[in-house]
């Protein structure tokens, strides 16, 4: 395992897309120390900011407050990154495989346009999780993102496949222009959830303020959620699925597009 310990919080955001198992695997520690990073417009070396220890591996541990370190795990295809602390924007953007785990908070654009792999953040995250970059037609194409805390705007914007599960409250426009995939909101969301969604599923375990362009369909237990419940259980995330506990209210929309998406809202028995 390779361990990188941040010496101090950079004064401005540090762009460090070389912090990826695809780059570091097979490199000596000296070679890793010499990898380029960008502090503003200036090219610097990894060891200007990190102490590098350990041996060649596709397992990377990053220690320290990396809240201003951006693009960690960019386009990674394999391996494991463990961040003990916070992380900066664009974590795991474009990744297609491997796992990233963060014990602290994330920032905006976590897993943007990713196509595979797993990102797990124990704390809060920012907006545009799994989203499409501006000007891009499609966001997250596959993979899983788990956020333990809260999240910001436009979660899952234009996502096509994959799963985003968020434990804390989420801000406006979750699932904006969603094309497919699944967003799970354990603590609900603020306004305009599912706006302009074409396809896909948004599951909320708390009541949601729905737009009038979503139509009520039925209250039931979709069998497909059993598959999701089993999958998420293996990742430590609970999706209720017990007839004795309640059922899901299904709303379809966004009919203003018109879309074939669905919002499922958990309705506990007796509520």
């Amino acid at each position: 395992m390779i361990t990188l310990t941040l010496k101090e919080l950079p004064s401005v955001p540090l762009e460090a897309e070389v912090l990826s198992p695809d780059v570091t695997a097979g490199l000596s520690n000296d070679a890793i120390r010499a990898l380029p990073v960008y502090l503003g417009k200036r090219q610097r070396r990894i060891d200007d900011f990190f102490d590098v220890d350990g041996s060649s591996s596709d397992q990377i541990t990053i220690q320290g407050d990396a809240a201003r370190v951006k693009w960690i795990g960019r386009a990674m295809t394999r391996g494991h990154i463990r961040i003990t602390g916070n992380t900066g924007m664009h974590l795991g953007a474009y990744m297609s495989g491997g796992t990233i785990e963060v014990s602290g908070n994330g920032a905006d654009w976590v897993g943007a346009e990713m196509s595979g792999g797993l990102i797990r953040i124990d704390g809060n995250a920012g907006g545009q999780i799994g989203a499409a970059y501006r000007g891009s037609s499609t966001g997250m194409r596959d993979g899983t993102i788990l956020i333990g805390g809260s999240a910001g705007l436009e979660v899952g914007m234009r996502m096509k496949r994959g799963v985003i599960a968020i434990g804390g409250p989420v801000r406006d426009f979750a699932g904006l222009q969603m094309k497919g995939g699944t967003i799970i909101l354990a603590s609900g969301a603020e306004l305009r959830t599912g706006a302009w969604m074409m396809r896909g599923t948004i599951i909320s375990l708390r009541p949601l303020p729905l737009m009038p362009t979503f139509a009520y369909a039925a209250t039931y237990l979709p069998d497909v959620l059993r598959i999701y419940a089993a999958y998420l259980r293996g990742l430590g995330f609970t999706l209720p699925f017990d007839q004795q506990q309640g059922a899901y209210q299904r709303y379809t929309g966004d009919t203003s597009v018109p879309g074939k998406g669905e919002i499922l809202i958990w309705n506990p028995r007796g509520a």
Partner: protein
Amino acid sequence: MARELRGVEIVDTYAEAFDMRVSRVIITAATEGWARTAAVSMTGFATSVIGCKVEAGIEAMLPASDTPDGRPGASVLVFAFNAEGLGSRLVERVGQTVLTCATTACFDGLPDVSERVQVGGVLRHFGDKLQSSKFLDGRRYWRVPVMEGEFLVEESFGTQPAIGGGNLLILARDQSAALTAAEAAVAAMRQVRGIILPFPGGIVRAGSKVGAKRYKSMTASTNEAYCPTVRGRVGIASELPATVNSVLEIVIDGVDRAAMEEAMRVGLDAACRPDVVQITAGNYGGKLGTHLFRLHDLL
């Protein structure tokens, strides 16, 4: 050279089996009863690939902990001669017997197999463009709206090489002894995973030979060499010892040779009961099948 097991002669011969393709279908439902109902319906009229285009049976009933959606289920094995035919039969059978059965869902039981046949990907059209799909962990599921709610079916099913037509012939002094021995063999063989016994109750009373001697259009006809009631007629080369008055056969299809051998081994052992005279196996002189199972190797 013949050998004996508990007084039953085990003939020095072999069962001759053929290459087939298999898919495993996992049916789940709200209760084990409904899962079984769907599985029994799906495996009906699937005794012989000659007449039914497919051979199918229930491999095992599954506890909720062993199914993809955490509900009670049944594992069904479906055999055909090629992947194309298997795909067509799966669409027909899942469409008519599982899609229509209350509370069921249908999953691929060979998810790691690369060769696939479309099942849900075809059945989705029943949804008349109101269906939707979900893609999770590399597998696509179709949600077809039905009056009860939704029918969930996996898009494609794996199909892999398999073996069909393994068999045991139980030759007994009378019908009762043959049936008792065959029932005991079936009970033992059904404990083995990876095999099915496609005939009613797992037992065949009407073993067949290829073609017919007297009707040229027949693809299969009665195996007169093992029919006691025509013994002694002119032109009949009976294979039956003088004391044998009833014969029952057990046909086995398996996902691989190991499963076939284990099933035949436990079945042969269980069938060696009082008043069973001989246990033998059907073959074509090794000319047709590529898989030979010598009975003495199973002892």
